[in-house]
């Protein structure tokens, strides 16, 4: 059989092997050198990658902001002078009631408040505050509180 002939041929070839030209020390030295080179490559690649990421982040943070993408600021003077804000009548008695609970002194017009009627171009709420502190609204609020007090005592 050819398989047996192959085995015998292999056995005869193994009788006188020539001497080795390398040893384990050579392999270990080459391996240590390759390991050192791989470690150096890894350190260099990591440092380069970190530096590139830092550069990209710094570039992204130092970029000047665009006018459209920034946060919304206060409206300009042209838009404020166009239409005054209408005052709802339901909020006025609420504010008056809260002022009467604190005491009658608060219902009187405070002289320290800026009640000047000079038109302020920056603030559009100036006519609203002058209406809530008017004595007419405080009088109506006190008249509505009296029936509530009489019902609790009886």
């Amino acid at each position, binding site marked *: 059989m*050819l398989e047996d*002939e192959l085995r015998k041929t*292999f056995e*005869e*070839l193994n009788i006188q*092997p020539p001497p080795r030209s390398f040893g384990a020390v050579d*392999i270990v030295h*080459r*391996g240590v050198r390759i390991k050192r080179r791989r470690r150096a490559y890894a350190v260099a690649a990591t440092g380069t990658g970190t530096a590139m990421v830092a550069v990209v982040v710094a570039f992204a943070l130092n970029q000047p902001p665009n006018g459209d993408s920034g946060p919304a600021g206060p409206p300009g003077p042209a838009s404020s002078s166009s239409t005054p804000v209408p005052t709802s009548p339901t909020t006025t008695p609420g504010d008056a009631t809260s002022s009467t609970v604190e005491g009658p002194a608060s219902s009187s017009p405070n002289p320290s408040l800026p009640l000047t009627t000079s038109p302020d171009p920056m603030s559009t709420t100036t006519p609203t505050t002058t209406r809530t502190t008017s004595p007419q609204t405080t009088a109506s609020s006190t008249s509505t509180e009296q029936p509530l007090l009489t019902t609790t005592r009886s």
Partner: protein
Amino acid sequence: MSWDAEFTHYFDRCADSMRFTAFLLCGNHHEAEDVVQSAFLKLYLAGPKLAQREGLDAYLRQIVVRTFLAERRRVRWKREKLTDALPEVPVAGSLSEDKLVVWQALSAVPAKQRATLVLRYWHDLGVEETAAALGCSVGTVKSNTNRGLKALRQRLGPEFGELWQEVRRGA
């Protein structure tokens, strides 16, 4: 025991047998030494990561065979080209004439079929172990064995079988 000491001990124990396996695969001692050096270097680099050290023989044999196959698979322009016959023919003096004919016929067998024949008839590995060492299926090992033996028979010619039968009857 550190890995370097363990590797040195293992190298002293297995280097000769692995070198002969590489010689059977490659056909000459020079290429066999290159293959074995590469295989031991790969083993040294992979050694600290190995989970178990029991199957080192099979692992090293697998590295040798795959290194040999990778070397043969490389493109032709990267390989060294021999422009003439090697100055030394160490095999011719130690082999009888019929064995020399078999050895020369084996050099004409393709690399993977040759690796299959060496693993099966020199290392006496089974079909499954050969398949694991070569990284192929069991059916591929069987077909490679069949094709390798067929190529050997074609190379040796029909008269070799008759001659071998006569030698066997005379013995």
